[in-house]
Structures are given as structure tokens and as C-alpha cells.
């Protein structure tokens, strides 16, 4: 790991570990903003941190491993996508959303609705896809905001617009992809944290006179959980590296799909190992598992990404699959010459 990434991770670790689920949003968010995290992926010559997608994966994985109740990932990619597309963001909060419908008229006014906007009730800018365009609207310009929440209790609000002035541009990376990257990284971190809790519990909880972790049935299911968590962590890092190299539509799709599959296994196994105590509000487990349940449904389900990948694979034909996979992975020399 590079020195700058280790320093960044130290900062993120300290920050996320100190967050509380019950603290007011504005005070928690001020800490994140002060640390400069939202500009992580913005170039240094644009006053950003100048990090790469590998840094973003590391930070968001860390956020996931603390179940950080903040739109850190949303803000990081909103800033990057806006910068890439030439949209101007102000210094405040920026979030992203994938469930938008409506249209922008010739005068640049948006009419439509955006559902499940993370922290859409806050004064913020929302970056979203509309067809092949990327659009940025201000939550303050919404005609109405319906407050909703995710299963994990995080704000996922519905915003309705009737002719609000927005910025609009050709996009490079879609919000859907960027969001999938974010959720994949968070899932990787949350799964590792959930696994660690499960191992700890299995070593401490005594039944039949010994820790339940000594029973093979428990060991085998935790081993499977470990394999799933490992797959997500590897896929997420590989997707980050691919994104740093250029077009990574395939890798991000594959990594989110794999993360979704693993999230389902991880949630079920963690609760099974924890038994009744893990089912309480008091125990910390639900902070992770309820987020994992939520993230699995955001920015593309298994079926969505599977069909997208499958269309590409089938369209290119059977004999093109291996050359496709290897050509995208063969970056040894190029990777090092940087």
C-alpha cells in the first residue's frame, strides 16, 4: 500500500470509528467535510485530494467496516462525476441517486422525480443519470420532499421537481456504475466487520461446555462466510484498479454482482452464528446487517448486473470470452511502467 493511502486510511479509520449513529447529521458531516474526504477523487489542480479509485475503495471499505451512517461514498463520486462532466458543484453536500425519471427541457429545467435519494432531505446537490446525460439538481429546488428511510434507518428520500433549473452534461461514467462501486466497497468492509464479530462471538459463547466456534458445523459456515468476504474484497479492489486504468463497466458490474451474492450469505450466517443476541437492538450486529440488506438492493441487483454482463458476453460470442477476460486483465507491464 502506498504511503499516501496508509495516511488516508488512518484518517478515515479515526474519523469513522468516532462517528455515532445518533449524532446530528450536520455535525458528523462537518467532520467528514473538514477532513477533505468528499474531494478524494478530484484532481489536485482542482483543489481536490487527487486520490485514485484504489484510494476510494480503501476509504469506502473502511466506512463500511464501521457502518458509517453518512453519504461519504455518494459525496466522493458525485464530486468526481461532476468534475469529469464539467458540472459545477458548490462546497456543500453532494449526493447521488439512481432512481430518477423525468426530463430536462430546452431551457435546462427538470421535471420529474428521484426516489431513494441518500440524505435527499439535507440541503444538497443530487447528481443522477437521465438517459445518456448526467444531471445535477439542488434539493432546495424540489417542489416536495418525501422523507423515507432505508431498512437500516438511513435517509432515502423521494424528491419531486417541477421545472427546476439543473446542470446537464454528457457523462463519462454513469451514476449507476459509480454507485455500484461505492456500495461494493462498503459491502466489502461491512462483511469483514460482520465476520470479525461472528468469529469473536463464536470464540466467546459457551454452549455444551465449550465455545461454539469449536463445533465443526459452526466452523464450516464461518469458513464459507470468509470465502464470500474474501471474494468481495478481491473483486472490489480489482474493480478499483480497472477503473483507474479506464473503462471498467464490466469489472464494476461483476464486483457489485459478486458483492450482492456475498452480502446475502454474510447476513444469514452472521445472524445464525450470533443466535438471539444478534437479533437485538442493543447488539451492534444489526448496524451492519441492515445496511448490507439495503446496499444489496441499491445501484443494481444481482439480476440487473447479471443480465447486463450476460448480454455483453453472449453478444461477443462464445470464443470471445476468454480473450475478453484476459485482455482486460493483462496489465502487468503497463501497470508498472506508470
Amino acid at each position: 500500500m502506498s504511503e499516501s493511502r496508509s495516511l488516508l486510511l488512518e484518517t478515515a479509520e479515526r474519523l469513522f470509528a468516532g462517528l455515532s449513529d445518533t449524532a446530528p447529521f450536520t455535525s458528523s458531516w462537518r467532520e467528514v467535510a473538514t477532513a477533505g474526504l468528499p474531494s478524494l477523487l478530484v484532481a489536485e489542480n482542482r483543489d481536490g485530494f487527487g486520490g485514485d479509485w484504489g484510494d476510494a475503495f480503501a476509504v469506502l471499505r473502511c466506512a463500511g467496516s464501521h457502518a458509517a451512517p453518512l453519504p461519504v461514498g455518494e459525496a466522493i463520486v458525485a464530486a468526481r462525476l461532476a468534475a469529469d462532466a464539467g458540472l459545477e458543484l458548490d462546497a456543500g453536500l453532494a449526493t447521488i441517486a439512481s432512481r430518477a425519471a423525468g426530463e430536462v427541457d430546452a431551457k435546462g429545467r427538470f421535471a420529474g422525480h428521484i426516489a431513494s435519494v441518500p440524505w435527499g432531505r439535507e440541503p444538497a446537490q443530487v447528481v443522477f443519470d437521465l438517459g445518456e446525460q448526467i444531471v445535477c439538481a439542488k434539493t432546495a429546488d424540489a417542489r416536495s420532499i418525501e422523507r423515507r428511510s432505508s431498512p437500516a434507518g438511513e435517509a432515502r428520500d423521494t424528491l419531486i421537481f417541477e421545472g427546476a433549473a439543473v446542470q446537464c452534461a454528457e457523462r463519462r461514467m454513469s451514476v449507476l456504475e459509480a454507485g455500484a462501486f461505492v456500495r461494493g466497497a462498503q459491502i466489502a468492509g461491512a462483511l469483514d466487520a460482520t465476520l470479525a464479530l461472528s468469529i469473536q462471538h463464536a470464540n466467546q459463547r459457551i454452549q455444551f461446555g465449550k465455545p461454539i466456534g469449536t463445533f465443526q458445523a459452526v466452523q464450516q459456515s464461518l469458513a464459507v462466510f470468509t470465502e464470500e468476504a474474501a471474494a468481495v474484497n478481491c473483486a472490489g479492489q480489482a474493480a478499483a484498479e480497472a477503473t483507474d486504468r479506464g473503462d471498467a463497466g464490466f469489472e464494476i458490474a461483476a464486483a457489485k454482482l459478486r458483492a450482492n451474492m456475498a452480502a446475502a450469505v454474510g447476513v444469514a450466517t452472521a445472524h445464525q452464528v450470533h443466535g438471539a443476541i444478534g437479533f437485538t437492538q442493543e447488539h451492534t450486529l444489526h448496524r451492519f446487517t441492515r445496511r448490507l440488506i439495503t446496499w444489496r438492493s441499491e445501484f443494481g441487483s444481482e439480476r440487473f448486473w447479471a443480465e447486463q454482463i450476460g448480454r455483453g458476453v453472449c453478444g461477443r460470442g462464445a470464443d470471445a470470452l476468454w480473450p475478453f477476460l484476459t485482455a482486460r486483465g493483462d496489465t502487468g507491464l503497463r501497470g508498472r511502467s506508470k
Partner: protein
Amino acid sequence: MQTFSIRPFEPPVDAAALRAEVRAFLAAHQPKGDATSRSNSWAVADKAFTRALAKAGYVGMVWPKRYGGGERHPLERYIVLEELLAAGAPVGMHWIADRQGGPLLLRYGSEAQRQDLLPRMAAGELYTCIGMSEPGSGSDLASVRTRGERTPDGWRINGQKVWTTNAHNAHYMIALVRTGAGSQRQEGLTQFLIDMKAPGVTVRPIIDLVCGHDFNEVFLEDVLVPDSLRVGEEGAGWKQVTAELSLERSGPERYLSSYALLIEFIRVVGTKPDPAATALIGQLTAELWTLRQMSRSTAAKLAADEDPALEAAIVKDLGNSFEQALPRLVQAMNDFDLSADTDFARALAFLLQVSPSFSLRGGTREILRGIIARGLGLR
């Protein structure tokens, strides 16, 4: 805690050029073969193909030149292996010598053993088999009972090995033999090279459920083995055997076994299949891509002389589960006629029958998960 951290796969050569070279070799030398053969790649022994591979420098690739090797980088070998396996090439004849036999001798063998055997292995002319399992010792390997007793100039070995892949083609067996008592079961084990033509060695075929002849039982009756064919130290057999396991657990052969079927399935459904088939192909591709990243990362750690034993166990179990699930997921997609005279039906029928072995060979699923659990600190 981070369950898996990636290590970049950075071979010191142009990977794309090496792949092109291997693909050109395959185009010229891979026997036509049907989909059954392509689905059984590293279990298909083909002497002519092995010799051609060796001539092209693809056997013993990483071994020192003075022993007939190519002194190539381990990641170059990895690239060649994945190309051969993805194409379903018949690499079974030299597979064990290349993957385990040669590396074992390089690590623990005597200079005389290396000079005698490695050049012939690298030439694709000398093959080995592994004598570990016995009728009473499967997953519980430390319980081996084949005994070696000292004689004035070597050892007299008695016992029986079973499930010995390629014993009928091999020139030498690398056998794990009990040579001493020891207070622990893992003590007192020693590895030997047993000449398969030596008096007292009898090989009997075991025909598998699809009528294939891959493994054998090997009887050892008063087989005299000179001490010069002992591999490594007396009593160090367990340590030597377990040290090589990372090498054979994380390779591309642990997730590509059903790849030939995936290809035939994509061919059969065409460029615009129904949504369910499209989704299945997409999901399998995503899993395959993920496993490939994990396997390559583990290979990079091995190449850097780390011992990623836990990662290797993870790759093997996850890879085996994937290649084992693939045939049954494909089968469920439609009313396929398993007796049809097509490459697709042959690959599907074959893999449905043999895929249960994927999570048995090279360490069972349960043993691997036990290793992972121990790695997690579960006591």
C-alpha cells in the same frame, strides 16, 4: 481485519504476447478432441502433446536451466497454464511432474536426484505420480501405514496406495511412507521416489464412474528402495507434504474445470438468449472473473515467496464450488437431452457426472474449510 488483500499480477514479460504465443502453439498442436476431452483437460494424458509442449518450453518452465528448465518467471508459467486449461488441452501426462514432482525435488531433493530426473521431466519424457492416499488414509493423511524399514543399503517398503492418479503412466511415485514411530502421528513420515518398474510394485487400474482410467491402486511388496531415492530428511515427510499444498490449491485448475461447458452453453444459446440464460451467463462470468482475480493474486504472493496458505484454501474451495455448481445450473436452464450427439450435451453430461470429484481431489471441501476456520482463530 481484511479477508483478502490483492497483490498485483505483474509478470516480467508482455503477457499478451506470451498468450498469443501459447494460442498459436495450441492452434498447431492441440488434438482435435471432443468436448468431453476438453472438459477433462488436466486428467487427459497425451504423450505426444506433452512432448510437443516440452519442446516449446512449457514444461518445467520455472526450473533452473542446468536442470533442463526454462528459468521463466512463475507468473509466466501461470499464464501458460491458464491458456492451456481454458483451451481444455490434454496436459495430464506431465501435470503432476510439472506441478508437484519437479518443485519437490528442487526444494528437498538431492543434487543427484535433480540432475537425474528434472531434465527428463522438463523434456516431457518422465512422469510422476503421488502416493499419499491409502485404503485407510484419505482426508486423514497422517494415518498412512505403508512402512519403510532400514536395510543395509536402503529401505524395504511394504504397503498399499490408492487413488493414485497416473500411476499407470508414471516412472516414479513420490510416496509418503512411515519410517519411524514418533510421539505424534505426523512424525516419522518420509518421502521416497519409488521406481514404478522396481520388483514388488504392482499397479491395478481403478475405473471411475464414467469408465475413465485415471487412478489406480498401487501395491508395494518388499520393494527395495536405495537411500539415494529418499527425498529430503528422514522423518520430515509431513512438513514437506504440507508445504507444497499452497502450490497446488490456488492454480487456475481449481476453477476452470467446467469452463469448456460454459463456452458450449454460450454457443448453444446464441447471441441473444432469453433473460434467464443471459443472467446465468452473466453471473457465471462475474464469478469466474472474481475467482481469476483471487487466483492470480495468490499466484503473485507465491511468486513473491510468501506463503498464502489461507488464501490458497479459500481459492480452492470457492473455485471448486463454482466449477461444481456450473453444470447443474446449466442443466436447470432447459430440457436438455443429455444423450444428444452434440459437443454441448457431451460436455454437460460428462461434467454433471464428474463434478462431484472437484471438491474431493486435492483436499476435500470439509478439510479445506477446517483449515480456513483454523486460520480464523476458531479453536
